[in-house]
């Protein structure tokens, strides 16, 4: 479904991504784990084309997308829930959600999508007329995920969805991602919460200093010596 081949990206003199290649197959949950500043978010931005200065090939659903505009990517149903949620703080929860369906692919079905998201996340319905800036961390993350779902995604990319959340809320978010996957949406997940994310993923990549250094099944990586030492501290 998504194939990234030999992507290199520079931030000034610094090479942020070095020959990054990865595959996500239809229906899979794939996780990229790695420490801060490993280049995970940059990779996401390259795929979404909000960062455009890179070379390499990115294919989605058989189409080269590495020259597309960000809105064209959204139109294809490749949706990103960005790091730090990036909600529109002085818009209401409802307005935030509705804007999730801005692209051509989902605008006509805005009402139905909103019903669907409200059913899935009833707390958002209660908060509907509240400003997004007034939501708690967990609610804000739910709102960001709901906003992503509004686009009727073929594939959802989550950038650090558990960042800054209480442990119990992290589990809730992970459950939600699992359910979204079960409904047929392909998932690419970037996480620092290695244990939780590896548990729910089919496959995973480990990224360090802009390079993919390891790849494998989620469970296998969870049990591997190296990962346990480097990321789980056991």
């Amino acid at each position, binding site marked *: 479904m998504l194939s990234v081949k030999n992507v290199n990206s520079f931030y000034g003199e610094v090479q942020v991504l070095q020959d990054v290649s990865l595959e996500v197959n239809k229906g899979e949950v794939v996780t990229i784990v790695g420490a801060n500043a490993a280049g995970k978010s940059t990779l996401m931005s390259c795929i979404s084309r909000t960062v455009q200065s890179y070379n390499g090939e990115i294919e989605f659903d058989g189409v080269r997308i590495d020259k597309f505009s960000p809105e064209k990517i959204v139109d294809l149903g490749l949706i990103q829930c960005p790091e730090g949620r990036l909600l529109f703080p*002085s818009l209401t929860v409802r307005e935030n959600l*509705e*804007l999730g369906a801005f692209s051509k692919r989902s605008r006509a079905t805005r009402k139905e999508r909103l019903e669907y998201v409200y059913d899935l996340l009833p707390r958002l319905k209660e908060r509907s007329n509240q400003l997004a800036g007034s939501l708690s961390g967990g609610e804000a993350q739910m709102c960001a995920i709901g906003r992503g779902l509004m686009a009727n995604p073929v594939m959802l990319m989550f950038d650090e969805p558990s960042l800054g959340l209480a442990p119990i809320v992290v589990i809730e978010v992970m459950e939600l991602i699992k359910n979204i996957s079960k409904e047929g949406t392909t998932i690419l997940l970037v996480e620092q919460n290695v244990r939780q994310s590896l548990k729910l993923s089919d496959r995973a990549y480990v990224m360090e200093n802009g390079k993919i250094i390891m790849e494998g099944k989620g469970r296998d990586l969870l049990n591997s010596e190296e990962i346990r030492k480097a990321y789980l501290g056991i």
Partner: protein
Amino acid sequence: MEQVFQVFVSGLLSGGIYALASVGLALIFGIAGLVNFAHGEYLMLAMYFAFWMYGIFSLDPYQSALINLALMAILGYLTYKFIMERVLDSSHSIQMLLTLGLSMVLQNLALMLWKADYRNTRIAMTTSTLDLGPLHLSTARVLAFVVAIAASVALYYFLHKTYTGAAMRAVAQNGKAAQLMGINLKKTYALTFIIGITLVGLAGLLITPIYPAFPTAGAPYGILCFIVVVIGGLSSIPGAIFGGLLIGLIESFAGYFIGPAFQQAAYFLLFILVLIFKPSGLFGKG
């Protein structure tokens, strides 16, 4: 007392026009983050257009309003596309210098094409008055006020009650997130510029029956809009409406109680006080 009331209403009427001219500037700054020092020149161009339409085709400024506004919209788009889009990521000082240059080019273009003469558009409404009890008001000014306030409030509702308006506010709040929603930033900026310039053009055509058109007719408005917008809180539309009305009132009262020479000084004084005591503006955040 009656006279004071007349001064009050007169100030309010001018203030409405200042509000309309300013909301466009606030919109452009608030959504696209662009500083436009040539804003007043578009008011001047709309005045000239209204004048020539009357001079050549005997269409008064209200009859030619739709063509005038369409032309302003096109001008707004062209200005954005060929000039402003190139400085989207530049610092405000570069945008300031660029648009200051643009304003001089437009003023001198007007001077070259139409000379420095004052061009008066005298239609029936120029001299007719509305008598409301003790008040004697110029019909053209009342009409200008009503349309100006209606258009400014309509802009506010457009931004807050429509889907496109929500998308524009989203762009203002977080450009990257807006892109991830599939919103095209440059198209949004272009739309912002079109609306902003059309609104200042509307202000221009509304005052054409009252004031003459000349090459620097827009310049005082350009400065005034900046003051209004700073007082109102830069990107706030209600702030710009309030600021416009406030400046109109201050100008009117200062003129009456202290002397016409003090009109401008009075609102500059307010401007300085706001900058010192509430630099984020009366309606600004933070």
